[in-house]
């Protein structure tokens, strides 16, 4: 495989970067995704950020962009477009997905904050866990009335929770190590839909 052409990447970077700063900002990203023919709310945009090891949302620094794409053996828009589908495949592997999922928290929150606003988290979950978490809609419904922010711990453990099969809920131990928010969710769920989750 030919080594990635960094010069080409730099030029690519220049196309999208902010006029007054050395990074690709929100506008640049929007254009990039347009050119890639990818919806900004497509999960693959997050996977890309993960692969590029981006540190904060809606932003790619020069290093992240150039080095990151180089590591992916990508040095043109065409190659990137093609790469996207293999990225989609990559996260089908549960262990890769978990790492990716945990990354998204760090990536999405304000650097100065320790937790993620509930609204942001809900939007992200809709993208990330759609099709992977059978109780996703109930969870989102529950959160509507319930909380202001999501801690890293809760975020991480929600993934573990989503991997429990539905029938396991009858064994759910609320004296176990699950975060309190998830305990409350299960309690709420059992109350709302008593038939489905009784043991």
């Amino acid at each position, binding site marked *: 495989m030919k080594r990635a052409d960094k010069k080409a990447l730099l030029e690519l970077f220049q196309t999208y970067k902010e006029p007054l700063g050395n990074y690709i900002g929100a506008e640049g990203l929007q254009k990039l995704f347009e050119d890639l023919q990818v919806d900004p709310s497509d999960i693959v945009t997050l996977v890309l950020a993960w692969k590029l090891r981006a540190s904060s949302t809606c932003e790619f620094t020069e290093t992240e962009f150039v080095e990151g794409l180089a590591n992916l053996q990508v040095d043109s828009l065409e190659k990137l477009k093609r790469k996207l589908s293999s990225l989609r495949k990559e996260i089908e592997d549960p262990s890769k997905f978990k790492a990716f999922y945990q990354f998204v928290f760090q990536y999405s929150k304000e650097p100065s904050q*320790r*937790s993620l606003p509930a609204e942001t988290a809900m939007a992200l979950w809709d993208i990330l866990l759609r099709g992977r978490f059978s109780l996703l809609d109930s969870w989102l419904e529950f959160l509507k009335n319930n909380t202001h922010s999501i*801690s*890293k*711990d*809760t975020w*991480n*453990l929600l993934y*573990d929770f989503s991997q429990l099969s539905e029938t396991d809920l009858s064994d759910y131990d609320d*004296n*176990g*190590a699950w*975060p*309190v928010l998830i*305990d409350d969710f299960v309690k709420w769920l059992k109350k709302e839909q008593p038939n489905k989750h009784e043991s």
Partner: protein
Amino acid sequence: MSNSFPRFPYPLSFEEGWSFIWNKGFLPLQQCLESGMDSRKKYGAEQWMAIYNTVYTLCTQKPPHIYADQLYVSIKETETQYLRERVLPSVKSLHDEFKLKELVHRWENHKVMMRWIRKIFGYLDRFYVKRAQKPTLDELGYNCFRDNVFQAVKAEARSIVLSLLEKERMGEIVDQLLIQSVVRIFVELGNGSLKLYTEELETPYLKAVAEYCKAVSNRWAEEDSFPVYMIRVEEALEDEVRRCKTYFTEQTEERSLLICEAELLDAHQLKLLMKEHSGFIPLLLQGRKSDLARWYRLFSRPGVSQGIEPAAEMLRTQILQEGNDVVKAFRARLEQNDKGGGEKSSHGQEFIETLMEIHERYLEVIITCLGSHARFYRAIKEAFESFLNQPLGSVTSAELLSTYCDILLKASGEIRHLSEDAIEEKLEKVVKLFSYLSEKDLFGEFYRKQLSKRLLFQRSLSEDLERSFITKLKMTCGSQYTSKLEGMVTDMHLSREVQEGFHVWLQSNAIQQVLGNIDFNVTVLTTGHWPTYKSDDIYLPEELSRCLSVFQEYYDSRTSQRKLRWVHSLGVGTLHCYGFPLTKGKSFELQVSTHQMCILLLFNDAERLSFQSIRKSLNVGNSEQDVEGLKKYLNSLCNSKYPILSKSTTAIHEENAENEELYEINLKFAPLSRRIKIPLLMARINQEEKEATRTAVDEDRRHAIEAAIVRIMKSRRTIDHQRLIVEVSQQLMQLFNPDPKVIKARIEDLITREYIERDEQNSSLYKYVA
């Protein structure tokens, strides 16, 4: 030559020797035994020696003329024959006690014969027996008797003995010596081992005892009440002990007692305990002390396998029920109160005193009748811990208990009539209830608040009592629990010293004049010890603020780098009042709080003041809380009992009628006495303070839980969720029962703050982050 050395041919033949021995020895002996003559009289020393020498000769001749073997065999044959032909028939021919007597007689005879044989044939014992590996002559003697006589008659002898014992049990008089003698045969025939005795006599005896006990206990249990049953059993046991001591070995006594205890006590315990009118609970409730004591004596014996356990359970259940009833009744009353019916205050006191009475009552029973056994202490503890911590409604037992202490230490109400010693006694009992509380930290908070009011408003009956109660708390919970309380009491001391010093300083520096006629005293408190009191910036009249600054000067001269924060809400003062028309020229004194004083002094300069102007003059804020507070003070001066001020609303600003009242001195005020004390608002704990206490305690608990989690994580490094919960609970249970949900919330918080983290593989495992 004397007769002692019969002239025998050499070598002496066995037949001749034996014939001599037989004729000169055995035959006369047997005749004596048969006739009852003392055998010793039959033989002179010479005859003895002759026989002995014959034996010696027969044993020591040169081979082949050594006849030790034959001698031994002949002895055995002689004994056996005699026993079979003479002894056994005579024993067999008799019945009952006569049979026993004959047996005893024959046994004594046999022992005589054995002694004789031992003496005469001693040579064999010394030189033949071991070499030939034969039993000694004594052993031979025992074996012969046993095999030829005893075995044949033992069953009958045993049954006669047992029936005699049975008769004695029924109250008849029997020949004790005879029985003892027969028992002795069983023992002696064992020749050093008790095996024969145990197998042949003891075991059948014990079986008979067991049967007897079974039969009799079934009957008694049916017919008798529990106390009567116990008396009978006690008698039966004493009787059995006497019997065993008279006839049997210590080992038999022990075993027999165990059987009796098992049959008489263990087998029927539950049924008896639960008898409706005379069972354990009725005895308790009726205070039947000697019966209870007897029960304890009997049922704590080793043979009762369940021991005192069933009764202890019943005790616990009984106390629990009584306690729960009291709790229920109180809860119902409280509900009624909260809805607006019935009177309030004394219910709490009654509740506590009722529980104390229950506690004392049962403690006394445990101590006087139940041997102060730890199991019962545990029963009462478990019962109390269970019902004392039940939810009561709008109050908690912690608060009630603390309030009760407050009543005792203030000596208010009926307590007034008690001596200090009596109060001390009550406090001692209160501490016992305190030890059962699970929310000790909540008690501590209430107690602290109430103590501060007692100290600051001088309501304590006696400082000694205060200190002694704090010491009692310290002994139950440790010094950390009481350190603030002790600090408060000490502060009062120190403050008095400062006070004295202040007055001395005033005198010596001639500053008294600056204060005018005001007698000014300050109580200095150390912030950490006392509950938090808000300070406020109320404008004091000039005379007062002058006092404050003078004191500040003094205090600064005495200490360094200390800041004084004034809490006017706790201050009290006395005002001299002149010029009220209805006092007919006399003045009177009003004892009021600082705030009330400031308000009243405003009226020295104005007859009528609006609410707003009062508020502004005193520098009270405009927030709802501040306005409410000021209104409370004003209303306290207008109330019907002491209407020093009168209130009226102006018609001008209808919309603001709320905050536009007018106040003026009530010239119609007619005080009933020269000294009037206006009730202070801060003197009791109000609802606001109660809620603040609850909040403060909850917050302290959160901190305590966090500290415990961090401590445990630091020492364990890694721990799983369940274990962490358990250990946190254990660490804190002295003070309160942490709610697992709260612990969980704290864990999560600590994860967020990166003190601990979850293990990557196992999310139930926590790791300490260094």
